[in-house]
């Protein structure tokens, strides 16, 4: 019973914190956008514009929720929910801090910093629910009965079949080296040996590129394309339904950043400073903070890239994925498999 309550508390904490974080990520994004263009950015609501997310949220909730007459209503309403749910449930297996032996104790119970600790197929789970997010986009585009939305949805499905393959294969190298699909074991392997970015530099690059496509962020925001598709899949959405797509996108960015940090930047690990033998609340919170800092850096990097690179054209994205990323991922996978086999004998 206590275990169940513990898990519910963890779920509430994670969902609450991440959704609150999204509000502030939008502020961070607007600030970075402004700075990249030599502007100041939102600075009117509260000191340094810190109350801006509240104003934005209130605006989203209070605006008129228009449902056009020509949309397919059930799918139209389902789509934003799918977008949010797919982005949120990925957090179930993400280790936010120490899990297992190093986890701190409370009333004699180990508190794992993970909602569902020791899921053996952690990565597979993240990949599968992550790609569910595309259904939100495709359903929105299709149910809107609007040619721009439809084009956005089509692009999204074409994008999906292009980048999902290199995304999966880029992770396989890391899985082969660590010999596990459990995210926490991968962090512990990196703590004991080297960070994934050193062990799998090509895998990291491929994963990074595919992750941008997975989150629908520039330079791969083809389904959205404000310029030529007038917002793409969310053209017909207003008020909080529109806000939910935003929420889903930023939640996805957080998930992907966590996965990148877990797979390639050692999770909570700092070489020679933190390792898995350190336990207790102090170290647990420190490790959680280190991980948060890395994830924050990754999110800022994603936003930085958004204001640097122009959008890929539709066919160049396919070119990149099928002609460059997939062959590279295959070669990387074969080479890794060969080396791992030789070392293990």
């Amino acid at each position, binding site marked *: 019973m206590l275990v169940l309550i513990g898990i519910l508390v963890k779920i509430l904490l994670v969902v609450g914190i991440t959704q609150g974080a999204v509000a502030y990520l939008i502020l961070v994004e607007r*600030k970075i956008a402004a700075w*990249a*263009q*030599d*502007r*100041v950015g939102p600075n009117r609501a509260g000191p340094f514009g810190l109350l801006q997310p509240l104003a934005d949220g209130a605006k989203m909730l209070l605006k008129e929720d228009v449902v056009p007459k020509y949309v397919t209503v059930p799918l139209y309403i389902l789509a934003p929910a799918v977008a949010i749910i797919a982005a949120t449930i990925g957090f179930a297996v993400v280790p936010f801090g120490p899990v297992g032996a190093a986890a701190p104790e409370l009333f004699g119970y180990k508190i794992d910093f993970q909602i569902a600790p020791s899921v053996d197929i952690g990565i597979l789970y993240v990949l599968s629910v992550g790609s569910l997010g595309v259904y939100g986009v495709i359903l929105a585009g299709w149910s809107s009965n609007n040619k721009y939305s439809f084009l956005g949805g089509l692009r999204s499905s074409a994008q999906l079949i292009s980048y999902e393959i290199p995304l999966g294969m880029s992770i396989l190298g890391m899985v082969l080296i660590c010999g596990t699909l459990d995210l926490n074991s991968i962090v512990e392997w990196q703590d004991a040996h080297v960070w994934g970015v050193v062990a799998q530099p090509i895998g990291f690059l491929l994963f990074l590129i595919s992750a941008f496509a997975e989150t629908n962020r520039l330079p791969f925001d083809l389904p959205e394309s404000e310029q030529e598709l007038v917002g793409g899949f969310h053209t017909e959405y207003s008020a909080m339904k529109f806000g939910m797509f935003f929420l889903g996108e930023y939640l996805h960015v957080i998930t992907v950043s966590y996965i990148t940090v877990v797979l390639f930047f050692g999770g909570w690990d700092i070489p020679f400073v933190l390792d898995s033998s350190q336990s207790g609340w102090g170290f647990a919170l420190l490790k959680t903070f280190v991980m948060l800092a890395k994830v924050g850096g990754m999110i800022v990097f994603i936003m930085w*890239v958004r204001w*640097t690179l122009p959008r890929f054209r539709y066919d160049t994205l396919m070119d990149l994925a099928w002609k460059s990323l997939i062959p590279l991922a295959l070669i990387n996978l074969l080479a890794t498999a060969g080396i791992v086999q030789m070392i293990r004998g």
Partner: protein
Amino acid sequence: MRADDPSLKRMVPPKLTTLERLYIPQILTGLAVTGRHILGAAVGGKAITVQYPEEQEVQPGLAVNLRDTKNYRGVHRLNKDDQGRVKCVACMLCATACPAHCIDIVGATAPDSWPDREKYCESFVIDELRCIYCGMCEEACPVEAIELTGFYDLTGLSREEMIFDKTKLLSVFDLTKDAEPLKYGQAPAGAASTTLAPADSAS
């Protein structure tokens, strides 16, 4: 020009090296550029925008805020000559030139005491909401009577308020004459230079 013309300069697109075809160096260069701008605006105070209501271009000693008028066209003014009379001779050239039809002039015969002109404007009304601030009126004016000033924060609470009559246009002249002398070399009324005879403005 023929294809084999010797003065024709052929531009060959540069052949990309393998490194360049990876795009990674270019992406890193791009990231460096945006990173420099982000840091410059975030911590270096290099943002080029002005926080408008708090920061304004204010010239000391002026009741209004003016922009540099070399490239800026703001609210109109009706110039006065050095006797304090309105310079306008009601020739209707500005009203004719105006593409937005926002100028309305009622001319009247000049009083006998004004020997330099036949007519003057009894009423001169500009609808500042219709005006597109193109400056054709000041180009058309033969006597430099109408000019666009650097007065930029033009606001009003009603449409009626934004229709400027002769009194208001003349008061704009009084507000701006010290900061902006006449564009075509004549000194504003009350200034030291009185070398030009009143007759000149009508000639």
